[in-house]
């Protein structure tokens, strides 16, 4: 793990560049890397999408299986989100139990999906208090070249938006039907590099960052989830201006997932 000690002069260089509004890979402070969403990547899933932001790649697969509603929400289905930072994706990740970082990615993406009411969980109820669908959102990180959260969120939304409910297979209805999507949340992550704040940090920038802020927005103009991460701090004014940036980029990113 500690094999990945960042060279201090590289970190300093990244901070120097940011001070004059530049970045290591030539992007401007507010430039996102090229993003793409390929839906239907995995036929064994009920829905799936491979999302890429730059060289970062996350594959999300959706599985719907019959389950039992929670006692306190007898008329709703359930949603389970899980992210795997498999050691294939980065020299920093090792085999073993889920790293706290993987848990953070799942939780942050889960919050956005849930809070935005991306899917209407009551529609996943089959028989009140008895039978419902459990919707599993499994995100598999394949290449960690920075900004896993946004890539995972894009993959999850792309996968949900292209999911078919396996009604026939489980004898729930006569025909399969598309999973209805109500809202389209996406995450936008920023990294503080000195006094500059860049969007969509690369893995090198994450290593140099003093603070990371993720803001999830929906298409209706709501902020639906936030997460401040890494060591560092943001002022309320920082956050206000980042929210504007998150909406600007979010609208483009959610179209990628929706129209893929």
């Amino acid at each position, binding site marked *: 793990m*500690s*094999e990945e*000690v*960042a*060279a*201090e*002069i*590289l*970190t*300093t*260089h990244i901070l*120097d*560049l940011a001070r*004059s509004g*530049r970045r*290591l890979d*030539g992007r401007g402070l507010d430039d996102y890397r090229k993003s793409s969403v390929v839906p239907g990547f995995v036929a064994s899933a009920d829905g799936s999408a491979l999302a890429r932001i730059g060289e970062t790649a996350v594959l999300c697969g959706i599985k719907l299986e019959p389950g039992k509603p929670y006692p306190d929400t007898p008329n709703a289905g359930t949603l389970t989100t899980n992210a795997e930072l498999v050691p294939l994706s980065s020299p920093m990740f090792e085999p073993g139990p889920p790293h706290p970082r993987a848990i953070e990615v799942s939780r942050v993406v889960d919050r956005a999906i849930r809070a935005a009411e991306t899917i209407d969980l009551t529609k996943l109820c089959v028989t009140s208090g008895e039978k419902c669908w459990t919707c599993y959102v499994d995100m598999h990180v394949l290449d960690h070249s920075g900004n896993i959260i946004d890539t995972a969120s894009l993959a999850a939304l792309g996968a949900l938006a292209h999911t078919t409910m396996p009604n026939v297979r489980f004898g729930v209805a006569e025909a399969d039907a598309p999973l209805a999507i109500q809202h389209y949340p996406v995450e936008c992550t920023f990294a503080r590099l000195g006094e500059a704040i860049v969007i969509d940090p690369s893995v090198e920038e994450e290593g140099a960052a003093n603070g990371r802020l993720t803001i999830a927005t929906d298409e209706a103009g709501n902020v639906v989830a936030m997460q401040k991460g890494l060591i560092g701090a943001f002022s309320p004014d920082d956050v206000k201006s980042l929210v504007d940036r998150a909406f600007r980029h979010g609208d483009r990113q959610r179209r990628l997932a929706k129209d893929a």
Partner: protein
Amino acid sequence: MGSGHRPGPPSRGRGGGRPPPDRERQLVLPGDEIDAHGLQPGPGTYRVHGRTYASVLGLIQHRPPVVRIVPLSGRYIPHAGDVVVGTVTDVQGTFWLLDIGAPRWAPLHMTGTPWKIDFGETENYLRVGDSVVVAVESLESTGRIGVTMNGDGLGKLEGGTIVTVSPARVPRVIGRGGSMITTLTRHTGAKISVGQNGRIWIDGSEEAIRRVTESLRLIDEEGQRSGLTERIASYLTSTEAPAEGLMPGPAPPTRAEREPEGEPPEAEDEPRLEE
């Protein structure tokens, strides 16, 4: 994407023999039998029952008394005498451990520095995250890579930045007779130190660093194609500031020009077509 194969007739005749290596470019894969021309098996090859095979992916090179394979990929494999750029990953009482991109971390003992250090004082000289230029001094059968900071052009790096390219690209970054480095320094005025391990230190104005970085990215991606030096020169010319472009005055002297002998010696070992 990828190479497709639909089951059907085999793609080439293999009457019991093995596929011939692609002779035109001498690119071989592990397991390919190679024509040793009577030479001894060198690095990247092995011999079984009198036949010589490649063990790594790369280009064949007949360099009497051995035939060897110049790898086109993989981690940096150190050789004694290599000058490399490393980063401190650990500090101990009498030595530091350096990540030089090799299979193992390389210990730099305090006696291998120009400093007079007392036991336990190592951290006052180099800390985790500091970068250095060192030379590979010894390679032991245990895999231990001994490095030293005593020598011309070796020492702690201050300022500038580090760009990493594939170690297989280093001969291209240097160019034949140092031509690529000369081109880069002449057009940008940057100071450049090329480690054999593919880590390259660049110092100069922000603009100079940016243009060298972009050039190195092109070299890393375009690799061994012909005319690379010309294309890099043309990129650098096209990105010159107008004032510079109008008056291409002499660039400030650069490290490479001042100390051409300081360049790593492997530049001429660049794989080439069969002579």
